[in-house]
């Protein structure tokens, strides 16, 4: 029996019940469209992250606390507070491949100005932050060494925070309250724009790291150190020098593990991309569940269809259809349903991901439909058809021809 012939028979059987077939594949259509749209959001975020890190420059290094074993208990990376402001000062002083450093510690806080308030990230940095991060001040000035030394209550606003608190007013010289502590606004950072779909880099306030440590967090450590190597070629050398210095400063015995890690932009970009990959997988799997639900719908309708067509199956068996012919016929019907739904779902999914940025809630979101996600959704929907179509098809093929012929 030719597959093409069976395919033709299946399509005719399905078009006889157009409404039912459509409702059956609706589950698959929604599932596949959801997988494609969700994965496109995840992929868009990943692409945004990659672009963002690429824009930061390649001679940037980060020193972060590492994992450390304490009486046999291993903490996770970054789970140990080992970095002190003195480490940052020493790196700048002793590593000749390093051009500038900026210690970093952040917190979230409620910010109030007049009758407006906003919750945002307070980024504690060194005075060389604009140089290290290639992020310039648009208006006013960044804080200087003396502000840092004095843990002065000054701050520089990200453009989004400025917009939210001051709208069109000039904020320079005004006083805002961060966690009820008054801070003087001395500058505004240039807008970096929204990147990566879920992050807005302009939604932050920069303040001296000493101020954030002591006045906002009440701690004596920093969470990381941003380091600028003197050139892109020297990042490896800078990395080596920092490692050597830090091991010495933290008195790490030869052969013991580092209690910090020095990462360059490539590493960081990779791990950030990895975390957005996880998000992609998560979004995709949630959408995938709806595909499975769609598959159950197919199984349900195929079981009904088998019952309705017991006589037909009996006739086919009587004129010489083998069990596997009947199995194939019903299996192909299920596959036609799921693959048909899959194809429609792919088209709708691509459409939804293209149109998503026009929905106000998702304004500025980046979506990327990859051939991989299309292929995945298609193969998944086909396998859903095979998986959920097999049981009804086998049930049909195992019918006893005599009973099937007598069935009313």
């Amino acid at each position, binding site marked *: 029996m030719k597959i093409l012939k069976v395919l033709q028979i299946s399509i005719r059987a399905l078009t*006889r019940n157009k409404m039912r077939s459509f409702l059956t594949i609706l589950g698959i259509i929604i599932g596949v469209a959801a997988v494609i749209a969700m994965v496109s959001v995840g992929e868009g975020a990943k692409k945004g992250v990659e672009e963002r890190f690429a824009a930061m420059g390649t001679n940037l290094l980060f020193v972060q606390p590492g994992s450390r074993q304490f009486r046999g208990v291993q903490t996770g990376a970054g789970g140990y507070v080992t970095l002190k402001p003195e480490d940052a000062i020493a790196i700048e002083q002793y590593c000749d491949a390093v051009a500038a450093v900026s210690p970093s510690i952040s917190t979230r806080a409620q910010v109030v100005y007049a009758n407006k308030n906003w919750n945002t990230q307070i980024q504690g940095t060194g005075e060389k932050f604009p140089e290290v991060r290639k992020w310039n001040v648009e208006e006013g000035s960044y804080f200087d060494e003396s502000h840092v030394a004095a843990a002065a209550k000054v701050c520089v606003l990200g453009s989004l925070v400025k917009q939210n608190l001051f709208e069109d007013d000039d904020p320079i010289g005004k006083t805002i309250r961060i966690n009820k502590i008054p801070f003087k606004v001395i500058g505004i950072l240039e807008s970096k724009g929204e990147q990566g779909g879920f992050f807005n880099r302009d939604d932050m306030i920069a303040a001296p790291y000493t101020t954030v440590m002591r006045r906002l967090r009440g701690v004596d450590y920093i969470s990381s150190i941003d380091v600028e190597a003197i050139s892109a070629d020297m990042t490896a050398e800078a990395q080596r020098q920092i490692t050597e210095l830090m091991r010495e400063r933290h008195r790490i015995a030869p052969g013991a593990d580092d209690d910090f890690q020095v990462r360059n932009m490539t590493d960081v970009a990779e791990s950030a991309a990895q975390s957005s990959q996880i998000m992609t997988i998560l979004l995709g799997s949630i959408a995938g569940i709806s595909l499975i639900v769609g598959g159950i719908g197919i199984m349900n309708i195929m079981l009904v269809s088998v019952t309705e067509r017991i006589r037909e199956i009996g*006739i086919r068996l*009587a004129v010489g259809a083998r069990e596997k012919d009947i199995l194939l016929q019903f299996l192909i019907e299920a596959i036609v349903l799921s693959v048909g739904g899959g194809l429609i779902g792919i088209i709708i999914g691509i459409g939804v991901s293209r149109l998503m940025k026009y929905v106000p809630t998702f304004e500025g979101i980046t979506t990327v439909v990859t051939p991989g996600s299309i292929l995945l959704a298609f193969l998944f929907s086909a396998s859903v058809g095979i998986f959920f179509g097999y049981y009804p098809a086998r049930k049909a093929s195992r019918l006893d021809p005599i009973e099937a012929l007598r069935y009313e």
Partner: protein
Amino acid sequence: MDEKIIVLENIVRIYQIGEVEVHALRGISYSIERSEFLAIMGPSGSGKTTLMSILGLLDRPTSGQYFLEGEDISSLSKDKMAAIRNKKIGFVFQNFNLLPRTTALENVELPLMYSNINGKESKEKAMEALANVGLKGWEYHRTNQLSGGQMQRVAIARALVNEPSIILADEPTGNLDSKNGAEIMDIFTRLNREQKITLVMVTHDPVIASYARRRLYLKDGQIVREELNGKVDSQASVQGG
């Protein structure tokens, strides 16, 4: 006319319905010659439909042997049985058993699909079979647009299309009025006389049975008597069971 197309040796069929054993056939031994026209008669529950199912390879005997054209088919696999049903046996049922919402031609082509005959050859054969039962011009009518007599003729064409060794008819006129019934019987008689097709027919109607050359009477799963051209011949081929 002395070649034996079907040989049955002590065929027993027992159904297990829950705890109860139903002895549908209690040892049938019989042989049918090529080009025979045989009617199997008997009251309901006599086992004639069970015998027909076994002859048609839709069912297997509980014990005993069944030779179809010399081949022992009591122990064949399900796939082999399906292939033999396809190639050697044509069925005609009381309720026609045509596929709904399909054309006469498609119904007749159905057995060909399962013997891998496709396209032009399949269509030609099916057209020829329909012409053979007098349905030329009705090929593209859907089965629900046909009368009962026409539907049964489509079923006969479907039974004929693969040039089977034997056609099995189960109460072929049971759902037809006497005029249509007579027409169907005329077709059977003609196929048997002119095309030498072997026919086995189950019926309880003596008028219909009288078209057959030989009549076999069953009761309680056993052969009780055999008639040839109206004469009682209770010894011929009948063995104990």
